[in-house]
């Protein structure tokens, strides 16, 4: 998930914000080779941040709108974990304090 830790990869990702682009356009002006850009795109794609679509002979890359779904999924898990921890402590406190009332 460290997909955006690399500055070049982040630059690649940022170039997709304005819309879908082919590799050749993404690579333009970047100080790395086109195969290197393809490699970065592959990592971004595996991380679910970028999506690939073939049009004729060219592959277009775009920001994956489903990233939102991933954020949601992440927070579903996040709250499950937090509430399980809360329940454990809240109920443990009960056994200690039950004589106080």
């Amino acid at each position: 998930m460290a997909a955006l830790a690399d500055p070049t990869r982040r630059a690649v990702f940022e170039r997709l914000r304005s819309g879908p682009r082919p590799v050749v356009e993404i690579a333009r002006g970047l100080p790395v080779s086109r195969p290197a850009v393809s490699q970065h795109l592959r990592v971004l794609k595996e991380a679910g941040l970028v999506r690939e679509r073939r049009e004729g002979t060219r592959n277009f890359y775009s920001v994956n709108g489903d990233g939102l779904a991933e954020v949601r999924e992440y927070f579903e898990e996040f709250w499950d974990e937090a509430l399980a921890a809360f329940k454990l402590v809240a109920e443990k406190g009960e056994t200690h304090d039950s004589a106080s009332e």
Partner: protein
Amino acid sequence: MTQQASEIVIEKTVTVSVPVDEAFRVFTEEIETWWPLRTHAVDTESSDTVVLEGREGGRLFERAPGGEEHVWGLVRTWEPPQRVGYTWHPGRGKETAQEVEVTFTPDGEGTRVDVRHWGWEKLGDRLDETIASYTEGWDLVLSRYAGATNG
């Protein structure tokens, strides 16, 4: 986009066997006793406590032994022992904040605790950016979580 940000409401419920007052107190005043800081924090390495200031406008933040703080949000609703609501923007600017509201309802001799987390539409054009920052900012969280579950 397959789903609108405004349609997303994360809803979670847990039932605990203690009365409402107690459940509310543990959730808020004693949040440092249960919040999983090792996995659910901006700085999972250093932060060793979390504080929820129990009043409207109070802060919810994590703190490291050296005093460094990361604010997660501000308390917007403070109605003990029924309801607490706060904004939520850990590791990000407050302009991208979501809302979290937690309600405490008597359920037999125990309490039903409902958490709602919404307001993703506020991100607007910053959505991609925010998703990116989540992905990046919570990297450590996720890697530690993965480490813990594998261990």
